[in-house]
């Protein structure tokens, strides 16, 4: 147990560490320019917070969900932090529904009061505190305060709603254009129709089979466009990171898992628990492995999407951050060029991850409804 906690302490903030790693690697690449900037960073250290730390914090903040929609912040002449953005509603379930605006938190600086309870934002999480806003910590510096069920409309939830509305309008429009335009897509639908057809002809039918693919099509289409759109939104200056959030990818993978296992036929379960075509001792060995596979498949789905989006954001933001660290004529354009190149790659990754998620979901559905008589194939 002690080892475990030790371990936990050691890794208390993966994001920070991941961004640290990326930064370290990039610093290595740019070491000579960094050397040139040595004096300045020394000067900053004197003020308490180095630029590097500031950027790290900024990246870390960006990667997380937040209770207000802020695009950026700056420090004005009076030394106050000014946030550009707007607050979002906070909805808490803490012995009754509590609804208030996130502006009450003042970005974690003050305590919000709602229905006789006091709440404080600490590391993007809401804790119940006393009027003074004291947060007590355990030995690993984890708050021990009560954490109410947070059903707030956070930045991510808002983006999900916006994406949902956008998708609905877009594809409803496409569906309508067929009836009004004599079976031919019109406007922006002309761009999306081939993609819909691609998902049907190159993802669903080859993996699921022409017989069963119909019932999975709505899910595959929805999940593809949902992930793709949110990935693309993540690359905009809006600064949202929805698909790089473990709760989101978990929810998506859970749906794939549920659909796979709830629509699975007898054949699928037989292949898991009593693999045909192998001697019986092997069957006993294979059953737990196969059963584990049932859970590993959606787990890898959720981790893959999360890690890819997270990593993309960290690399991109670190490169942008480097521009402010190397204020030299060679370092900044170089990191700008790199950031630009990575942005282009990220556009590709955005569609690739959506494609892979959809593709693998289709593949798993295909396993679930497969009907084969050729036992020797396994």
């Amino acid at each position, binding site marked *: 147990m002690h080892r475990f906690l030790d371990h936990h302490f050691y890794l208390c903030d993966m994001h920070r560490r991941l961004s640290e790693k990326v930064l370290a690697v990039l610093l290595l690449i740019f070491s000579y320019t960094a050397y040139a900037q040595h004096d300045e960073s020394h000067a900053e250290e004197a003020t308490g917070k180095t630029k590097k730390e500031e950027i790290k914090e900024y990246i870390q903040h960006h990667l997380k969900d937040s209770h207000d929609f802020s695009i950026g912040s700056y420090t004005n002449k009076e030394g106050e932090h000014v946030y550009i953005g707007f607050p979002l509603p906070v909805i808490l379930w803490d012995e009754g529904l509590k609804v208030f605006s996130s502006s009450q938190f003042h970005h974690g600086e003050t305590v919000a009061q709602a229905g006789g309870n006091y709440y404080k934002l600490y590391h993007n*999480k809401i804790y119940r505190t006393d009027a003074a806003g004291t947060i007590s910590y355990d030995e690993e510096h984890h708050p021990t305060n009560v954490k109410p069920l947070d059903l707030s409309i956070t930045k991510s*939830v808002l983006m999900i709603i916006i994406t949902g509305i956008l*998708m609905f309008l877009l594809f409803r429009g496409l569906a309508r254009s067929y009836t009004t335009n004599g079976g031919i897509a019109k406007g922006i639908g002309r761009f999306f129709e081939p993609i819909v057809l691609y998902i049907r002809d190159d993802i669903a039918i080859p993996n699921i089979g022409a017989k069963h693919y119909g019932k999975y099509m709505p899910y595959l289409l929805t999940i593809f466009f949902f992930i793709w759109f949110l990935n693309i939104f993540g690359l905009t200056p809006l600064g949202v990171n929805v698909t790089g959030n473990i709760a989101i990818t978990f929810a998506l993978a859970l749906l794939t898992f549920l659909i796979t296992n709830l629509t699975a036929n007898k054949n699928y379960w037989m292949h898991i628990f009593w693999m045909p075509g192998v001697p019986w001792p092997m069957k006993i060995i294979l059953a737990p492995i196969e059963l584990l596979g049932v859970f590993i498949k959606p787990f890898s789905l959720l981790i893959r999407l999360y890690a890819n989006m997270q990593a993309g954001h960290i690399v991109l933001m670190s490169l942008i951050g480097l521009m402010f660290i190397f204020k030299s004529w060679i370092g900044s354009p170089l990191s700008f060029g790199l950031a630009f190149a990575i942005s282009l790659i990220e556009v590709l990754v955005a569609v690739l991850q959506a494609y892979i998620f959809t593709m693998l979901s289709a593949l798993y559905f295909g396993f679930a409804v497969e009907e084969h008589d050729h036992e020797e194939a396994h």
Partner: protein
Amino acid sequence: MEKLLEEFSLGLFIWQTVLFVLLLLLLRKYAWKPILNAVNDREEGIKNALASAEEAKKEMQNITADNDRILKEARAERENLLKEARQIKDKIIADAKDEAQVQADKLIQQAKEAFETEKQAAVAELKKQVATLSVDIAEKVVREELGNKDKQLKLVEDMLGEATLN
């Protein structure tokens, strides 16, 4: 791993699940089904159109083949008819010739016969007339001879003299 669990926000998870399922159901009803149906219909339509075009082409080919066949048949028929007609014509001509020949022969025969008959009749008549004439002449002669007694007697004597008793 622990970090991931710590970062996991139940509220966000609930929102995501609810909103996504809602989006899925709405899109399924109002977008995906109409889109997929429209696309399917269109593809089906194109397939049918192509099939019917193919059918029409085949039909066309059949018709052309039929036409050719019919033309050929008609040509053959015409040939046949012409040939037959020619044969018939030849036959008719030949027949007519034969008939004419026969008829002519018959007519000639008849003519010959008639001529013969006429000739015989004429000969007979002539004979008769000659006989009559002869008799008349003989009568006249006889009458003259017998007009006077001397002559009669003389005749008798001549005759008797001619008719010598051998």
